[in-house]
C-alpha cells in the first residue's frame, strides 16, 4: 500500500506512519522540518516500511502545493491513502485581538487543507480508488470560548469534507473526517492532563482502523462522540455563558 502523509512529524501522524511502516507500506512524508523528517524516515525503515521518501514544505505556501504533491505521488509510484495531519494550536487570546494572527491560523488549519484536497482530488478521481483522510478536531463541532478561532478553521474543513465525500462517491474515492479530542502530545505540553486525554498512539490506531473500514466521521477516542453530542445540543442561551 502507498501512503502519503502531510504534516508527518506531528505526534499523531508519526504514530500512524509507524503503524503503516509495520504493515510494510511505502510512505511519502511531507513536513516543514527537514531534520525531523529525516529522523522519522530512518525510524520507519527500521520498523519495516518498504520505502520511505520525503519532501520539505511550509504548507502555508499554497502556490507550491500542486507541484509538490505531483512530485510526491510520482516518487511514491501512486497513492492509496492520503492522510492530512498538519495543524497548529493558537493562543486564543492573541488571535482574538489580531486579525493578522487569526488569518495565519485559519490559513494553516483551514485553507491549506482545502488547497491540498483540491490538488489531490483529481489524482484520486482519475485512478477511481483510494482514501482521503483528514485530521480535524472536536473543536470544530461547536465554537467554544477558549478556542473558537482554531475551531472555526477546523469546522471549515469538516464542512468541506462532508460535501467532498458526496462528490467523490461516484468516483469510488472515500473521504474520512477524523476528529480527535484531547491528545497528550508535544503540541499540548503546556496543559494539565486528566482522564479524558488520549495518547497519540491510541488516536493513530483509530485512524488506521477507520480508513480500513471506510468510516465517515470518526471521533478519537470514541467517547468524544457522546461528549460532543451533549455539547452540540446545549441551547445557545446557556451555551453562551459557558467558559469551557
Amino acid at each position, binding site marked *: 500500500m502507498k501512503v502519503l502523509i502531510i504534516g508527518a512529524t506531528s*505526534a499523531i501522524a508519526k504514530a500512524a506512519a509507524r503503524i503503516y511502516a*509495520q504493515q510494510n507500506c511505502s510512505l511519502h512524508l511531507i513536513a516543514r522540518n527537514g531534520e525531523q523528517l529525516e529522523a*522519522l524516515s*530512518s*525510524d520507519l525503515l*527500521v*520498523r*519495516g516500511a518498504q520505502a520511505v521518501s520525503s519532501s520539505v514544505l511550509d504548507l502555508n505556501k499554497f502556490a507550491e502545493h500542486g507541484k509538490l504533491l505531483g512530485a510526491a505521488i510520482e516518487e511514491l509510484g501512486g497513492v492509496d491513502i492520503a492522510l492530512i495531519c498538519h495543524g497548529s494550536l493558537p493562543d486564543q487570546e492573541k488571535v482574538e485581538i489580531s486579525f493578522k494572527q487569526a488569518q495565519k491560523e485559519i490559513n494553516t488549519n483551514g485553507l491549506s487543507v482545502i488547497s491540498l484536497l483540491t490538488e489531490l482530488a483529481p489524482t484520486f478521481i482519475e485512478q477511481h480508488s483510494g482514501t482521503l483522510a483528514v485530521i480535524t478536531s472536536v473543536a470544530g463541532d461547536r465554537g467554544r470560548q477558549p478556542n473558537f478561532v482554531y475551531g472555526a478553521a477546523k469546522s471549515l474543513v469538516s464542512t468541506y469534507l462532508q460535501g467532498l465525500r458526496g462528490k467523490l462517491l461516484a468516483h469510488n474515492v472515500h473521504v474520512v473526517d477524523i476528529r480527535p479530542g484531547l491528545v497528550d502530545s*508535544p503540541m499540548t*505540553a503546556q496543559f494539565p492532563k486528566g482522564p479524558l486525554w488520549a495518547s497519540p498512539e491510541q488516536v493513530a490506531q483509530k485512524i488506521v482502523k477507520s480508513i480500513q473500514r471506510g468510516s465517515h466521521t470518526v471521533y478519537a477516542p470514541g467517547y468524544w462522540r457522546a461528549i460532543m453530542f451533549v455539547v452540540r445540543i446545549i441551547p445557545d442561551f446557556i451555551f453562551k455563558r459557558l467558559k469551557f
Partner: protein
Amino acid sequence: MEAMGWGRYPKAKADLIEPADAQSLQKFVASQKKSASCISRGAGRSYGDSALAGQLIGSRFLDSFLALDEQQHTLRCGAGVKLGDILKVCLPRGLFLPVLPGTKEVSVGGAIAADVHGKNHHRDGSFCQHVTQISLVLASGEVVSCSATQNPELFRASCGGMGLTGAIVEATLKLAPVPSSYIDQRSLVANNLQECFAHIEDNADSKYSVAWLDCLATGDSLGRSVLYLGEHSVAKNRKSDRKYHARSSIGVPFSTPSFLLNKSSMSLFNMTYYSLQKNKSRTSRLDYDNYFFPLDRLSNWNRLYGSKGFLQYQFVLPCEGALEGITTVLEKISKQGKGSFLTVLKKFGEANENLLSFPKSGYTLTLDFKNEASLFPLLDELDQIVLDHDGRLYLAKDARMSEAVFKASYPNWEAFMAIKAKVDPHNRFASLQSNRLGLTT
C-alpha cells in the same frame, strides 16, 4: 503532578517535562538555573525513588529508531524506545535483545541507567555489557558520546549511574541472533533451599536460569522452589519461528484494598503454585513473551498492593555464605510474620567495570513486601545481614536504604563522585534517592 515509581512508594510532587526530541531536551537542560535539580525518567519502571525529583525529564517522545545494521547486529535508537518495541522490530529479522529484565515495558535509557540484568546474567552479563555507545546530555547542555574507548570513565559512570551523570538521549546496542522466538523450558523442583542451590550449580551452563521460591515455607521445606531453565528453541521452519508475540494484557483498573494481600492469601497462592508446578510436565516450549514477561500480562499489577504501594527488596550475596545468608533472611522474614508474594532467586556471574552497577558474583534474591510501617525496621535488619555477608542492594528497586549501608556496599561510590563532580559540579542531576544516599545534596 504526583509522581511515583513502579512500587508506588514514595510519592512526590514533580513537574514533568517531555521534550519532543533530543535537541529540545538539550535546550531545556541548558536553559535551567544551576539550583534546579532534575532527573531523567523513562518508562517509570524503577520501583523506588530513583526517578523522582522536582523536575522530571520524560523520554516518552525520544522513541525513534535511528539505524539497524542487520549484518553487524547493531541497533541505534532513542532513549525512550521500549524493549518491547525493539523485539517487535528485531524478532522478524531473527535478532533478539541479549539481556531482558522481567518486563518489556522498560525504556532503553532506563535499562542503561540501572544496568538491568536478566535470567542469563551468569553467562552474558548485564544490559550495559551489550551497549556499545551512548549519547549523554550533560548539565552544561553539551552532548557527549561515550563508549568503552571514547570518554571511557564517563561511560562506566553512566552505565548503571541512575541518570546522575546526565540525560541519556541515544544509545547503540548489540543484538544477538536467535534461531526462533521460542524457548525450551525445563523445570526442576527443589524441596528446600539447599536442593535449589544444588540444581542451580548443576545447571550452570544453561542459557537462562531463575528460580521461583515459596517464601512462606518454613522448617525443612524452607526455600522450596522451582528452578526454570531455558534455551533458545531451534527453528522448525515454520512461519511462526520468528513471530513477535504481542499478547493483550488485562489491566488492574484501580488499587485493590491492601488487606486482600495478607499472609493467608499469599500462603495460599504460593502453596497452590508450588503444588501445581510440582506435578506439571518438566519440559515445555514457550514463546519468549510467556517465558520472559509473565507479569506483563497483568498490566498495572503494582496496584494489587493497595494505594500505599509496595517495596521490592533485592540483594546479592557472594557465593560463599549465600546459602546461609539467604536462609537467615528467609527465617527472619517468617519470624516477623511477613511474607513476599513473589520471591525469585538467581545466580549472578562476574561483576562488570561500571561503578554503580548492582550485579556481582553470587546469589541474588528478590522479595516484595506490602508497604506498612512495621516493614521498615525489618528491612533495616535485613540490610545488616546483607552487609555482614558482603552483599548489596539493587538501586533500581531501593526506596529506603541508608547512606551508610549504600557507601559500605558500593566500594566505587567515591570514584563515581569524582566523575560526577567533573561533569555536574552543581548537582543539577539529582533524585530523591541520590540525595538520600549522599551522592548529591
